[in-house]
């Protein structure tokens, strides 16, 4: 399979880049990429195309991931072609024509099943892999199997892999080691198994333990029983010892009680009650004496009191009232003269006022003259209003006058303003002119630019040449396109290249011909060389002779004439003999000089081929001339219509570029002129408009006009604004004046209304109709004074009359009472008689109260005496009762009985306490039993026994503790026996076993892989050593430009086949002795040989080389390129480089079948 073309449709920096690999069958293609990036992208595009673009590609910077596309046309060995496109994606990424998904299998078959990794390894080579290959040779120390295997796979050293496998196996297991993982696991397993067996519990062991535990329990039970027994005895003895004293004391108390005899037990409070009764009796008797004395004194005081009953029975309220009226009467007697004086003063004042007013009116009715309060108030209000209303009217009238003055002034100002015409047209024209203020300047610069451009264009036009027409017509010339010029150039170049190749071939052929002629001459000079033709001629002559002999001999024919013709010099027989000898001689020579013969033949053949070749080349050259002429005609034809007489395409390309630039300039000039015309037109327009608006006769520049227009516009605007201001003032004044007039009217009517009201008030006061407010105010003041005196006069008269009536009534009542109760007072004047009566009444009332108090005290003393008598009797009865209860005849007997009773009670109490103490000790036994037990038990013996018991109990406790510990230990032991130690150990062992299993499998794989691989290396060597080594033997001297003569296979110290190199001087050296560069070349030789061998048996695939020669010097590079060109006859070789010198070297080194391509992300592949 090979590439016909590769299209980087959208990949990396490329868009639509096509590299044409159609040249050569298959051919060496040198692809030159100026920078490394472009070149590596192209390399990635090849694997991407064949095997898919990787998921994470770095070639999606210009184009988006989904847009990436690589196209190609590829041809199989059988000539079948396939067009395909690879897109970026996950599925159906391979597309055929029309973007239809293509089965990967189709491509896979073309690739002969070679996968991506293998393709990269086998068919891809760069200087790094080359160096690695060389290093692998070194590492393998020339082991032929490894070397060949490596070279065939392009792998990174089969040795590395072998060592890795061996290391892997060794790290897992070594028979006599302990650290490798598997050895360690085996050991751990053994240990776990031992632990499991150790932890395992035998049934017998458990049963033994159990029995021992049971025995310990029995011992414990025995000890516990004994402890119970001893404890009980200890308790009994201790109780008896404790009871001993108590029993003795109780017996003593019982004795005492008996001695006290049968004294009666009195109530506990008997003594207290007796003492209380005695004390109560004494107190009662003493208190009774005192009360009786007091009673006598009180009765005496009551007998001394005498009360006038009738006087005291008088109504208390009436007497109090009388007392008050008496006080009033005293006060009235003092006031009366003062009141009479007041009455006289006020009467005189009233008479005086009436006289001032000039009215004659009875005194008592003078009050009626006083006007009402409402009327007075109204007069005051109207008085105030009168002043205010008059002021307001005056102010309003003044304002009105002022406004009228202002309006007159404004109207005069307005009339004085001048008239203004409408300025709209002027403003528009001025604004339009202002928008383009620099029109004149622009026009000037435009003009100068036009002038400059015109001068330049003329100069350039003169320099352009080849065409003689008007400059303006230049842009419109019908010229061939840049593309068609490129095409012509390619074709010219092709023709020229063809011619060069042919001429070179012709030279070569001529040299060959010369060399052949020279060599033939040399051969001929060394003696004629017999040829097959010579032999054939000799044999023909011999046969002819023989025919003549035979005819003469067998048929007796006369052949003399023919014989003479056959040989004129000698008879037929010797002639025939001679002919025969001659033929044999030639045969002998042919055999003897076979070398020279062959050389002659080969030289002859070569000469003939060269002659033939020469003819062919000459013919081709002729044909090439014809087609070159046709091309030249076609070229001239392409320019004919434009009237240009063309030079070479390369020159015309330059001309075309200059023509293009000039055309652009001409067009630019035309544009400038159009711009200028437009500016001139605009200036005229503005000028005219301004003039029309200002003054048609004005003749000034546009700028001056515009300035004047601006001043004029401003002036008009100012007048207009003033008029508007005055108009507005006038309007305001008129409105205000109207309001002022209205106000004057209002004030006036207000004053009129007041006057009506005033007249009404004056009438009411019965004054003359024209009275002024001041007059009214004076009359009113007098009337008010009159009112005050008249009222006071009436009041004084009323009070005097009331006093005189009170004196009369009091005198009547006092006279009545004195007559009835104290006639002695009847002769006294009123005030004294009344006072004496009241004093007598008060004394009678006090005596009555004293008598009632005395009687209440007497009753109370009597009752107290009766109560005390009852208390004394009660105490006597209590004492009698107590004596009876104690069986005593008197109080002394009672006291003795009380003493005995208290003694008996204390004894009882002590006995009860003792009994309670004994109850503890007795523990339910009747006292008698205890007392008996105490009496039966000897105190000293019991003490001894108790101490023994304590001792023994301590021993038992000690023993129990021991047994308990024993039991605890055994129980724990048994519990542990039920544990899962053995099961856990077994689980551990299983885990180790699983590990062993896993590691063993890994070990087996590594070990077998290593074994299989070694075996395969040997086999591969056996199969491939011959062909590959012998081809590499040819290539190696060429690649080292003769420094080495060849290779040889030797046997190393372990009898393994080892590759050695033979130097030009015949010495053979190990791989180790080679320099890095030479090793590179050796590896390259092996790779090329392997690839050739692969292609022999498989579908050949393109070999992709990536700057593989950068470590080679120019001489060796040239040699390598020649070798690669040779390889390219077997399979397509794509040689990528970004070194221009390698491209040049290739051109020099490769005669035919070299195709160079340039790779640029812009531009084209040439």
């Amino acid at each position, binding site marked *: 399979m090979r590439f016909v073309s590769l299209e980087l449709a959208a990949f990396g920096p490329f868009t639509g880049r096509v590299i044409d690999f159609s040249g050569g069958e298959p051919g060496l293609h040198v692809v030159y990429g100026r920078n490394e990036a472009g070149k590596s992208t192209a390399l990635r595009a090849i694997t991407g195309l064949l095997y898919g673009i990787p*998921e994470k590609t770095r070639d999606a910077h210009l184009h988006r991931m989904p847009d990436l596309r690589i196209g190609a046309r590829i041809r199989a060995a059988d000539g079948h072609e396939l067009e395909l496109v690879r897109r970026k994606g996950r599925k159906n990424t391979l597309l055929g024509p029309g973007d239809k998904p293509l089965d990967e299998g189709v491509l*896979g078959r073309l690739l002969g*099943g070679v*996968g991506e*990794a293998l393709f990269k*390894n*086998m068919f891809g080579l760069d200087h790094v892999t080359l160096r690695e290959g060389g290093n692998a040779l070194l590492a393998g120390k020339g082991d032929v199997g490894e070397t*060949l295997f490596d070279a*065939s*796979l*392009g*792998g*990174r050293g*089969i040795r590395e*892999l072998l060592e890795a496998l061996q290391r892997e196996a060794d790290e897992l*297991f070594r*028979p006599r080691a302990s650290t490798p993982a598997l050895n360690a696991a*085996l050991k751990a*397993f053994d240990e776990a198994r031992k632990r499991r067996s150790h*932890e*395992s*519990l*035998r*049934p017998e*062991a*458990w049963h033994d333990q159990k029995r021992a535990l049971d025995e310990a329990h029995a011992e414990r039970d025995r000890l516990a029983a004994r402890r119970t027994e001893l404890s009980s005895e200890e308790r009994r003895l201790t109780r008896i010892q404790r009871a001993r004293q108590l029993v003795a004391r109780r017996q003593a108390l019982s004795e005492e009680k008996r001695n006290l005899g049968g004294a009666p037990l009195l109530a506990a409070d008997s003594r207290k009650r007796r003492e209380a009764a005695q004390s109560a009796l004494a107190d009662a008797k003493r208190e009774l004496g005192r009360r009786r004395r007091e009673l006598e004194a009180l009765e005496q005081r009551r007998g001394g009191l005498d009360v006038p009953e009738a006087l005291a029975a008088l109504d208390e309220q009436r007497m109090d009232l009388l007392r008050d009226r008496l006080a009033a009467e005293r006060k009235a007697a003092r006031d009366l003269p003062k009141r009479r004086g007041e009455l006289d003063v006020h009467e005189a004042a009233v008479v005086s006022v009436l006289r001032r007013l000039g009215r004659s009116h009875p005194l008592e009715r003078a009050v009626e003259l006083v006007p009402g309060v409402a009327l007075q108030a109204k007069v005051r209000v109207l008085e105030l209003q009168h002043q205010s209303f008059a002021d307001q009217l005056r102010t309003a009238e003044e304002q009105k006058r002022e406004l009228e003055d202002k309006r007159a002034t404004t109207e005069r100002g307005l009339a004085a303003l001048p008239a203004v015409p409408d300025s709209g047209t002027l403003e528009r024209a001025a604004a339009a002119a202002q928008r383009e203020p620099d029109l004149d300047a622009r026009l000037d610069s435009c003009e100068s630019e036009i002038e400059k451009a015109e001068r330049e264009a003329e100069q350039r036009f003169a320099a352009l040449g080849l065409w003689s027409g008007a400059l303006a017509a230049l842009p419109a010339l019908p010229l061939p396109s840049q593309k068609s010029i490129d095409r012509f150039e390619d074709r010219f170049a092709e023709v020229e290249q063809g011619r060069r190749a042919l001429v070179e071939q012709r030279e070569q052929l001529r040299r060959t011909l010369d060399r052949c002629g020279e060599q033939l001459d040399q051969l001929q000079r060394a003696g004629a060389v017999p040829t097959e033709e010579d032999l054939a001629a000799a044999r023909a002559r011999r046969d002819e002779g023989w025919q003549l002999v035979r005819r003469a001999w067998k048929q007796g024919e006369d052949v003399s004439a023919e014989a003479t013709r056959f040989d004129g010099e000698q008879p037929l027989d010797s002639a025939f003999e001679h002919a025969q000898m001659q033929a044999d001689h030639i045969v002998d020579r042919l055999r003897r000089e076979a070398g020279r013969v062959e050389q002659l033949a080969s030289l002859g053949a070569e000469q003939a081929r060269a002659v033939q070749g020469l003819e062919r080349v000459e013919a081709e050259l002729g044909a090439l001339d014809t087609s070159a002429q046709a091309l030249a005609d076609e070229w001239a034809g392409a320019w004919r219509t434009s009237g240009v007489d063309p030079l070479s395409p390369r020159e015309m390309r330059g001309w075309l570029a200059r023509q293009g630039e000039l055309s652009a300039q001409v067009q630019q000039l035309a544009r400038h002129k159009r711009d200028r015309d437009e500016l001139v037109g605009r200036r005229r327009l503005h000028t005219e408009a301004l003039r029309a608006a200002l003054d048609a006769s004005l003749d000034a520049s546009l700028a001056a006009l515009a300035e004047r227009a601006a001043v004029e516009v401003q002036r008009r605007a100012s007048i207009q604004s003033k008029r508007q201001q005055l108009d507005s003032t006038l309007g305001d004044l008129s409105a205000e004046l109207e309001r002022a007039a209205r106000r004057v009217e209002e004030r006036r009517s207000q004053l009129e209304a007041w006057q009506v009201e005033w007249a009404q008030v004056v009438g009411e006061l019965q004054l003359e109709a024209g009275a002024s407010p001041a007059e009214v105010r004076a009359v009113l003041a007098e009337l008010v004074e009159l009112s005050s005196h008249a009222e006071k006069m009436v009041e004084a008269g009323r009070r005097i009359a009331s006093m005189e009536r009170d004196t009369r009534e009091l005198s009547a009542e006092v006279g009545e009472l004195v007559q009835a109760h104290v006639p002695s007072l009847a002769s006294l004047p009123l005030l004294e008689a009344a006072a004496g009566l009241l004093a007598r009444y008060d004394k009678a009332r006090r005596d009555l109260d004293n008598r009632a108090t005395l009687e209440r005290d007497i009753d109370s003393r009597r009752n107290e005496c009766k109560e005390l008598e009852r208390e004394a009797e009660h105490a006597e009865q209590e004492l009698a009762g107590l004596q009876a209860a104690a069986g005593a005849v008197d109080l002394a007997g009672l006291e003795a009985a009380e003493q005995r009773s208290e003694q008996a009670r204390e004894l009882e109490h002590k006995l009860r306490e003792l009994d309670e103490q004994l109850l503890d000790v007795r523990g339910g036994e009747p006292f008698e039993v205890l007392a008996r037990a105490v009496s039966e038990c000897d105190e000293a013996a019991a003490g001894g026994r108790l101490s023994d018991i304590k001792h023994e109990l301590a021993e038992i406790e000690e023993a129990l503790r021991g047994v308990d510990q024993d039991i605890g230990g055994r129980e724990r032991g048994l519990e542990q026996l*039920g544990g*899962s*130690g*053995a*099961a*856990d150990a*077994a*689980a551990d062992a*299983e*885990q180790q*076993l*699983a*590990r*062993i*299993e*896993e590691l*063993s*499998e*890994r*070990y*087996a*794989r590594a*070990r*077998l*892989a290593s*074994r*299989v*691989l070694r*075996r395969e290396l040997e086999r*591969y060597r056996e199969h491939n050593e011959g062909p590959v080594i012998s081809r590499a033997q040819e290539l190696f001297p060429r690649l080292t430009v003769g420094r080495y003569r060849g290779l040889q296979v030797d046997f190393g110290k372990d009898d393994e086949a080892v590759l050695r190199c033979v130097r030009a001087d015949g010495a053979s050296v190990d791989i180790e002795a080679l320099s890095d560069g030479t090793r590179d070349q050796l590896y390259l030789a092996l790779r090329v040989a392997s690839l050739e061998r*692969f292609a*022999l*048996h*498989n579908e050949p695939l393109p070999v992709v080389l990536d700057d593989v020669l950068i470590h080679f010097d120019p001489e060796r590079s040239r040699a390598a390129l020649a070798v690669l060109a040779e390889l390219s006859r077997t399979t397509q070789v794509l040689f990528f480089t970004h070194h221009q010198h390698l491209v040049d070297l290739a051109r020099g080194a490769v005669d035919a079948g070299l195709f160079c391509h340039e790779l640029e992300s812009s531009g084209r592949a040439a």
Partner: protein
Amino acid sequence: MKIVHAADLHLDSPLRGLERYEGAPVEEIRGATRRALENLVELCVEENAPLLLIAGDLFDGEWDDYSTGLFFAAQMARLAEAGVQVVWVRGNHDAASRVVRRLRLPDNVRELSDKRPESVGFDDLGVVVHGQSFARGAVEQDLSKGYPPPRAGSVNIGLLHTSATGREGHDVYAPCSVEDLVGKGYDYWALGHVHQREVLAREPWVVFPGNLQGRHARETGPKGATLIELESERIVSVEQRVLDVVRWAVSRVDASEASSADEVVDLARAAIERELALAEGRTLAVRVEVDGMTKAHAELAAEPERWVHNVRQAALELAGDDVWVEKVRLRTRDEVDLVALAESDDAVGQLLKSLGELRASDAELGLLAGELSELRKKLPRELREGSRSLRLDDAGRLREVLTDVEQQLLPRLLSREER
């Protein structure tokens, strides 16, 4: 009224195949069979079941640690306190067990005779249990034939340790046919020996309850005992109760869609997560088998240990102590066309061809086996012989290893890091 039927406790027999690794839940799986038994006792107590039937294989045959027996006795004592009666027959393992011979069990546990079939009646329950223990490790005759006819008026239950008609992975003991069992006229056959739960018949019930706790990657899924419910002397329901504490699972991961080893780890994580959900909070022992033709193969084959570690790490992150990744089997294949590769005449093609020849030749395989003989000699007995043997000298096994080797070598020969 309820009866619990369990079998194949294999107390204290260790869980197999769990290679220990950093972060593996060693403590969690400890004593799993013991805790499963505790769960069984708990079930009897909670369900208030007066009767527990155990159809053999309480202990592993070669297990000789008496502690195991003591533990069992203690659990039976717990049942005695709760008033639960236990009837059991010895299975093939128990018959060979040293522990069983010396074990003294509480009075509530009744072991049936190994001389002849024995019937135990529970009059208060209306139940009769018939059964016979194994006298030796291997009993080849059909014991069920000798069982007595059903007792009228009672629920008849046959207690039997048997391989029935034969089950894969289980030795043949006391074989019998389901027809014979059905024909006996009992109401329920409580079988033991087969570790996978199976209901052989429903009228009457013939049931293998399966073992209480799965012990290796071939005993996956929920494990437990069977709960039989009776009403007025008739069986009304039979259901499985899950009692295991460690759940075994095998999770297959198809890596064919994965484009990198990291994605494979993600897939494995997802698969483990699914199994965790099924384990309902139990500790999960899971085997992950990754296969498929995948882009990720080269990466996996280059450093298998690293990716196994990463899967375990992922599991650890997922569930911490709740999961033990027993094994990660990487069985992926490269995407390369092996046939096409083998046809080509290059070095790889020749290697593939000769690997093919190797696999086909027993003599060559014999030579290869010699490479591993040193290791074989050192292996423990368990891995040298018997069912767990690694068979490193077996031609079939070596063929498999060679296939693995092929898949491991290919990417290492073909790949070259991108520069």
